[in-house]
């Protein structure tokens, strides 16, 4: 099944011409975007890239992953070196407004936390003293200062160039704690000398970090493509459609058993307007599974990180993952 590009956005047309989606990811954050020894990428961010490639091109393998430092991610997006940025990026007003970008949806609800040596695991975050490592070029330093001011704590930020550098500084005892997104701390804890059990992540969250994909705001249709691919994966979980049963997702708008001709027509018009393949939803789910499958494989019980779903549960289960109607 092919796609008609008559109405497609500039970005979708470019991706078709190139035959490849260029996706900006991290240089290596386990669970989100990391390369194994064979050079194969995996992670939640990587899976979203593959799902979008499957929806647009019909092949999840047609993605070029571009590893980017935190400071290089927005210059790369602005220069058009990547079509899509999925790199643990927090959705904030200033980023969206000032950098002329769009965050189509939230992929992972995170929060800034503290990782400390296991012997401090029962210490309240507000009682931490001494230098606390943070990564340069992130929002973490500002969040830490705000938390410190609010609780009158005597902490000072020790700014380190990279996430790995900050973790290494904690492991070497150069700082009392390392403050970053909880998910990132969990990932870096796996690399701790002596094993992950030697370090604990405190339960407090000092910020809201809704992480999501980012696209330039100059092409609203492209933002729509990314948004609806992600929501399709969430909707698929809600409907119980899995990688194995992806064919049932044709099309999701009428999968409730309805024979509503209007809904079918609206779905077809939308697909054509976005320049997607007619079977894009099936392709996306077949490529990476539903949102729940993605989470479990990369971050949850099926992964070394073993993160709780927490806020990332479906709305029907007390979480925040909620897809608007796909019709």
């Amino acid at each position, binding site marked *: 099944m092919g796609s008609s590009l008559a109405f497609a956005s*500039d970005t979708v*047309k*470019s991706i078709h*011409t*190139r*035959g490849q989606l260029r996706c900006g990811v991290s240089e290596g954050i386990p669970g989100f975007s990391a390369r194994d020894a064979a050079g194969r990428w995996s992670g939640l961010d990587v899976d979203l890239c593959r799902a979008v490639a499957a929806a647009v091109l019909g092949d999840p393998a047609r993605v070029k992953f571009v590893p980017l*430092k935190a*400071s*290089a991610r*927005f*210059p*790369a997006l*602005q*220069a*058009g*070196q990547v079509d899509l940025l999925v790199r643990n990026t927090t959705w904030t007003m*200033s*980023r969206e407004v*000032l*950098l*002329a970008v769009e965050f189509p949806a939230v992929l992972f609800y995170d929060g800034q936390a503290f990782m400390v040596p296991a012997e401090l695991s029962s210490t309240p975050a507000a009682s931490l003293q001494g230098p606390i490592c943070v990564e*340069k*070029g992130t929002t973490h330093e500002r969040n830490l200062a705000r938390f410190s001011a609010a609780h009158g704590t005597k902490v000072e930020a020790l700014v380190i*160039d990279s996430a790995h550098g900050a973790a290494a500084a904690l492991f070497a005892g150069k700082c009392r704690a390392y403050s970053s997104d909880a998910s990132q701390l969990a990932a870096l804890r796996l690399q701790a000398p002596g094993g992950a059990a030697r370090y604990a992540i405190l339960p407090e969250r000092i910020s809201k970090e809704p992480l999501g994909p980012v696209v330039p705001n100059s092409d609203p249709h492209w933002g729509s493509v990314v948004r609806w691919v992600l929501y399709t994966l969430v909707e698929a979980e809600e409907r119980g459609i899995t990688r194995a049963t992806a064919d049932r997702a044709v099309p999701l708008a009428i999968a409730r058993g309805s024979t509503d001709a209007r809904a079918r027509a609206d779905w077809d018009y939308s697909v054509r307007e976005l320049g997607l393949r007619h079977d894009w939803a099936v392709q996306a789910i077949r490529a990476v599974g539903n949102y729940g499958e993605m989470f479990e494989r990369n971050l949850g019980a099926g992964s070394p990180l073993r993160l709780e779903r927490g806020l990332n549960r479906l709305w029907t289960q007390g979480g925040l993952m909620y897809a608007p109607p796909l019709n």
Partner: protein
Amino acid sequence: MADWQIYLTLGIITAVVIVIAFDLIDMAVATMLGVVIMLLSGILDESDFLKVQGTAGGVIALLFGGMVVARVLETSGVFDTLGVPFLRLTRGSGRRYLLLIVPTVAVICAFLPNAATVVLIAPLIIRAAQALGISYVGPMVLVAIVSNAAGLLTLVGDPATYLVGTAMGMTFPQYIRQVSLGGLLAVLVIVPLLPLLMRDVWNTRRELPPTGPMPRLQRPVFVVLALSVLVVMVLLFLFGQQLPTDIGPPAAAILGATLALLAVQGLRVEPVSETLRAVDWKTLIFLGAIMSLMQALEKTGMIQGMSLRLADWLGSEYTLVALTLLAAVGLMSTVLANIPVVAASIVMTKGYFVAIEAVPEIALSGQFTEWPTAALPVFIAMMFGGTLGGNATLIGASANVVAAGICAQQGEKVSFARFARYGVPITIAQLAVATLYILALVWLF
């Protein structure tokens, strides 16, 4: 864009430049051919032409308006009248004539759009050259080159300086303090080269006829109307953007052209179609086509994408980055329209500073102005490269194309090589002076 399309874009632009340089095909036809190939290969599409309207539309409207007003002024006979005192000031000396052109054009172009100034001042320059019995090609090239360099004198002197200046958050006085001296040096360095590059003109001595009565104006009412249109247009160039309804230079030029045509028809001077026939459409078509090629180059993202490479290669060596940008942007601007090159270079430079973590990521926004002092020479180097590089060749700046178009209309064709004979040595000298100026800024900051 696919890789093959990026290579094809670069190939087409290179081929167009070569074809123009060796005068194999008319420059307007060559650029149109390039655009057609890009259309057929899917590099450009309809949406790109909408974007080109945004970039080229302003320049073309400005030139169209300037050309119409210049034609109407010429028809009124005002240049014959003004030409007399201008010629008297030369005292029959080619040297004085050339030395007169430099400050006159520099002062006007410090405030008015370059290409429009070239259109408006050309009749005076050409008449004086004809009276002195010399070719007007060299002096017209000089007008174009001085107008480009003089654009550096003030923040509003050139679209490229305005783009970079506002990206840096510079105020008008701040610009005067930090950049204008460099612009002045770039203008002054032209003067010692004139006896070498324009020897024939420089050595010319002519006995001027004794001062007679000023030529009588045939239609005084028309002259008053034509001059009023010019005054309104110039005032709008200077202050139009401060009016409650923002009237930028292109809108001011269209307004001037409309009033001028109204005067022509109202006073039955000549048919409006005759006035419009005098517009240099070939130059306008060339500019529209070359801006379309620039749109394709912008789509490749090559210039903007250099930010990360620059960060990888040169790190925080600001002096090296500044000199690299001066040379690279200067070289690109020799054959590419400087506005799109500078616009893309601003994205690149901001991206570079964010990538090396000298500024926060918010610096990529147009609102950010808190640049560290050490960053200023880098931006200024890019500005000088973009503005001065365009002086080297016929197609490097719209003022050059316009000057050549006027010469062709008057009967003397300016080839790519002929322009480069003047342009290349002057550009080299200007970029050398700019290098010293940038080094001085680095030392000061």
